[in-house]
C-alpha cells in the first residue's frame, strides 16, 4: 500500500444560508463541490448571503448545492428562477449577482441554457446542483426516500429485484454485468449474514463521476444501498471510498448521521422490521482496491490484493459471506427506477444498454465537467455539442474511455452510439465513465506509455504477469518513444501484451494492455513513425536524432 495521502479533513463550516423568512422570490445556488470549492466557492456563499442581507433582499435564498456540472467554468452560481448561470464568480466581485437577484420577478420562467445542459438527461445526477448535499429535508423535498418507503411498505424483495431486472440496469462500474442478476445471486446465496458494499474507490485517471455524485447527493447512495439491502436480505453495508475524496467522505458521514437520526438507517427503518446500517471504510490510495476482491480484503483490514474468482463475492465475499458490490452510480440509479418505474427506465437507452450514463469530460475539451446522457448518444454529441468541442478549435484526434483498461477511439468512429457493446467492438471499454479527449498535440504512443506507467505503478505485485509484464511493456513503449526501438521491439510488445492480458490474475493486469492494443489498431502508423523514421508525428516525444558518422 502506498502512503496515506496527506488529505486533511476539510474544516467543518456551517453553511451560510440566508433563508428567507417569508416567500422565496429568488434563489442563488452556489456550487460547493470539490472543483468550485478549490476556487473559494464557500467564501462566495458566505459573502453573497451577507451582501444580500445588506441590500435588504430578505426574500432571497442563498443555498449551497452540489456540482453544477460545468466544472471548467467554476466557481458557478445559478439563479434557478431564471436559469442564469454565473461562471468564474469571484468572492470580491458579487455586484452583478446581487443585481440579478434583485431583478428576479416572481413566477419567472427559466431561460434555455444551451446545449451543455439541454442535451443531457439527468437520472443518477437529477439532484446534482439542486439540493444542499447536507440537508435531508432538501433531499426529501425532491422525492428522496419515496422509493425506499414505497419498497418497504408495499413490495417484497423479489418484486424489487424484478423491477431492477425489467429496468435493464447494468453495473455502472464498467463491466456492465446485469445488476438484477447479481442481486438475485446474493439473495439466493446461502448464509445468514449478507453484506452490501458501495464501491466508491474511483481511481481512473480523468474520472470524477462518483466524486461528484457523492459530494452532491450523498443521501441518494444511502437510499439506493438500503433498497439493495432489502432486496438481497442484507443488514450491514459498507461504503469503500478513497481517502483522496475528503469532501465526499465528510458529506457521507453527515448524511449517514442525519439518515440514522431520521430513521432511514439503523434498526427498524421507517418503522418496519427491516434494519440496515452503513459504515465508511477509507481506501489508502491503491488503485487495485477498486477491484472487488481486493476491495473486500481491504475492508477486512488485510492487504488489498485481488484473489482469483470464482468463488465470486456474491457467493463468498466479505468475511466469507455473500456480498453485493455495486458502483456508486449503479446505486444512484436505483431510487429513480423504483420511483418512476422500470418501464420508464428501460425506455431510455440503446440496445442492451438501458438508461443513462454519467461521464466525466476531461482533457482537451472546452466544457470540462460532469454530464449525463442517455445510452446511445453518439460520441460526437457528447464531445462537440455538450462538451463544446476541442480547445482552441484544434482537430480532434481520439477519445480515451474506460481508464487504464480502456482504449482510444479515433475520429472515424465519432458517430458511434455509446453503449457497453459498441465500445467493446471499438476496442475500448465503458469503464466507470471517464472520457479524456485528445487533439493533434497528443502522441498516441506517449498516451499508451502514460497508461502503462499508471498500471505499472498501481500493480499490486501479487501475480507475475502484471507485476513484471506491465513494467516490461512500459520499458518497450519507452524505447519506442525515445526512438531507440526496432521492429523486433514492436513484435515483442505485441507478444508480451497478449501474455499479460491472458495470464494476469485480475482485471488490472488483464486490462492493462488494452491502451496498447487500441492504439496499435488505430494509430499503428505513429508507432512506425517512431520506430522506422525516428520521429514523433505529434512532436511530443523527444527523439535524439542520430549523429552522423563520418564515412
Amino acid at each position, binding site marked *: *500500500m*502506498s502512503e496515506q495521502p496527506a488529505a486533511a479533513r476539510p474544516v467543518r463550516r456551517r453553511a451560510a444560508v440566508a433563508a428567507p423568512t417569508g416567500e422565496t422570490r429568488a434563489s442563488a445556488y452556489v456550487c460547493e463541490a470539490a472543483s468550485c470549492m478549490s476556487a473559494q466557492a464557500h467564501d462566495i456563499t458566505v459573502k453573497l448571503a451577507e451582501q444580500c442581507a445588506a441590500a435588504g433582499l430578505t426574500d432571497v435564498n442563498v443555498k449551497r448545492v452540489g456540482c453544477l456540472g460545468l466544472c471548467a467554468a467554476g466557481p458557478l452560481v445559478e439563479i434557478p428562477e431564471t436559469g442564469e448561470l454565473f461562471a468564474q464568480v469571484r468572492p470580491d466581485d458579487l455586484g452583478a449577482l446581487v443585481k440579478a437577484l434583485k431583478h428576479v420577478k416572481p413566477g419567472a420562467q427559466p431561460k434555455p441554457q444551451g446545449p451543455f445542459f439541454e442535451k443531457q438527461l439527468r437520472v443518477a445526477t437529477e439532484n446534482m446542483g439542486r439540493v444542499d448535499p447536507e440537508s435531508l429535508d432538501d433531499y426529501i423535498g425532491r422525492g428522496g426516500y419515496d422509493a425506499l418507503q414505497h419498497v418497504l411498505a408495499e413490495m417484497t424483495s423479489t418484486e424489487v429485484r424484478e423491477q431492477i431486472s425489467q429496468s435493464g440496469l447494468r453495473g455502472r462500474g464498467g463491466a456492465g454485468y446485469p445488476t438484477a442478476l447479481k442481486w438475485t445471486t446474493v439473495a439466493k446465496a446461502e448464509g445468514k449474514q449478507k453484506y452490501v458494499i458501495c464501491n466508491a474507490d474511483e481511481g481512473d485517471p480523468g474520472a470524477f463521476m462518483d466524486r461528484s455524485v457523492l459530494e452532491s447527493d450523498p443521501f441518494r447512495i444511502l437510499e439506493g444501498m438500503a433498497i439493495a439491502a432489502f432486496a438481497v436480505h442484507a443488514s450491514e453495508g459498507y461504503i469503500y471510498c478513497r481517502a483522496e475524496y475528503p469532501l465526499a467522505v465528510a458529506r457521507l458521514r453527515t448524511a449517514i448521521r442525519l439518515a440514522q437520526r431520521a430513521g432511514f438507517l439503523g434498526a427498524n427503518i421507517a418503522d418496519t422490521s427491516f434494519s440496515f446500517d452503513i459504515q465508511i471504510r477509507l481506501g489508502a490510495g*491503491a488503485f*487495485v482496491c477498486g477491484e472487488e476482491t481486493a476491495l473486500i480484503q481491504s475492508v477486512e483490514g488485510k*492487504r488489498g490484493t485481488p*484473489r*482469483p474468482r*470464482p468463488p465470486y463475492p456474491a457467493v463468498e465475499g466479505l468475511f466469507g459471506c455473500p456480498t453485493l458490490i455495486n458502483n456508486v452510480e449503479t446505486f444512484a440509479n436505483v431510487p429513480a427506477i423504483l420511483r418512476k418505474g422500470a418501464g420508464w427506465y428501460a425506455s431510455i437507452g440503446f440496445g442492451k444498454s438501458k438508461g443513462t450514463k454519467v461521464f466525466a469530460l476531461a482533457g482537451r475539451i472546452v466544457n470540462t465537467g460532469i454530464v449525463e446522457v442517455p445510452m446511445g448518444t453518439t460520441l460526437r454529441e457528447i464531445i462537440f455539442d455538450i462538451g463544446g468541442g476541442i480547445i482552441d478549435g484544434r482537430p480532434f484526434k481520439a477519445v480515451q474511455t474506460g481508464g487504464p483498461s480502456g482504449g482510444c477511439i479515433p475520429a472515424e468512429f465519432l458517430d458511434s452510439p455509446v453503449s457497453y457493446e459498441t465500445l467493446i467492438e471499438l476496442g475500448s471499454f465503458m469503464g466507470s465513465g471517464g472520457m479524456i479527449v485528445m487533439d493533434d498535440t497528443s502522441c498516441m504512443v506517449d498516451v499508451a506509455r502514460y497508461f502503462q506507467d499508471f498500471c*505499472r*505503478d*498501481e*500493480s*499490486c*505485485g*501479487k*501475480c*507475475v*504477469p502484471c*507485476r*513484471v*509484464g*506491465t*513494467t*516490461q511493456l512500459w*520499458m*518497450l513503449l519507452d524505447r519506442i518513444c525515445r526512438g531507440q526501438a526496432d521492429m523486433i521491439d514492436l513484435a*515483442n510488445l505485441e*507478444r*508480451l501484451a497478449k*501474455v499479460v492480458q*491472458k*495470464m*494476469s*490474475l485480475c482485471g488490472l493486469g488483464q486490462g492493462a494492455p488494452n491502451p496498447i492494443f487500441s492504439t496499435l489498431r488505430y494509430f499503428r502508423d505513429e508507432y512506425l513513425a517512431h520506430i522506422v523514421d525516428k520521429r514523433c508525428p505529434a512532436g511530443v516525444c523527444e527523439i535524439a536524432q542520430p549523429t552522423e558518422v563520418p564515412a
Partner: protein
Amino acid sequence: MTVYTLKIDGRDVAGSEGQSIMDVAEENGIDIPGLCHLPGIHDRGACRLCVVKIGGSPRLAAACVTRIAEGMDVVAHDEELSEYRRAATEMMFLERNHVCAVCVANNHCELQDMSAEVGLTHFELPPISPALDVDLSHKLFGLDHNRCILCLRCVRVCDEIEGAHVWDVMHRGLETRIQADMGVPWGDSTTCTSCGKCVQVCPTGALFEKGRPVASGTRDERPFLPWLRVHQEERGL
C-alpha cells in the same frame, strides 16, 4: 462426499468435491507446472504458471485455486499454454537477478528446473534487475532479495505451519518485498523461532543457510529442522 469426474488433457479422472484441478492432476500423475504452489499450505494462484483452459472458455484459470466440477474439460498442456508459461518464467528471471553460476541454489533451484521444463532457452527482453539488499543479519540464514520471485511460500509456511507469521509483504508492484516483522532486519525479529522452514520451502536462492558453499548442489541432505535444536540450545531450553 461428492465425487466428480472430469477430463484433464483428454484423460478421464475423478476427484472429490473441494479439490483443486492441481490436486487431482497430481494424484493422477499429470504434471502441471507451478512455483507458488506447495502441498500443505494454502494456494494463492499468483505465479500463473499453472493456468489451464476450462471448457473452451477464453479466460484462463489457475489450476491450484480452481475447484473441480462435474464434467469439467480441462486442457493443461497445449502449444499456447506452453508459450505463456515460457513467457511467465522469463518474466521471473528478468525481474531480479538470477545468475545461476553464482547462486547458492544452483542445481537445486526450482526456477532453474522450471526453465528447463518449459523450454526457456534464452531471453527476448532486457532484464529489469535492480540492485537490491541482502539481509545477513540473522545468525543462521540469509535473505537475498535479488533472488526472490515473491511466491510467498515463506510467508505462508511461517504463518500456517510454524504459526509465527514473521514474514509478510510490503510495498507493491515491482517494489514488493518480503519483510520480517514490521520491516526490521531478520536478525532483529522478535517473532522468528529460527525453525528454518522458510529456508526449506524457498524455491530459489532467496532464503539460504549461511556457511554453505555455492556449489553444494543439494539442500536435502540435512535432518529435519536441525536449526530448531541450535535455537533451543542457545536459549537454554
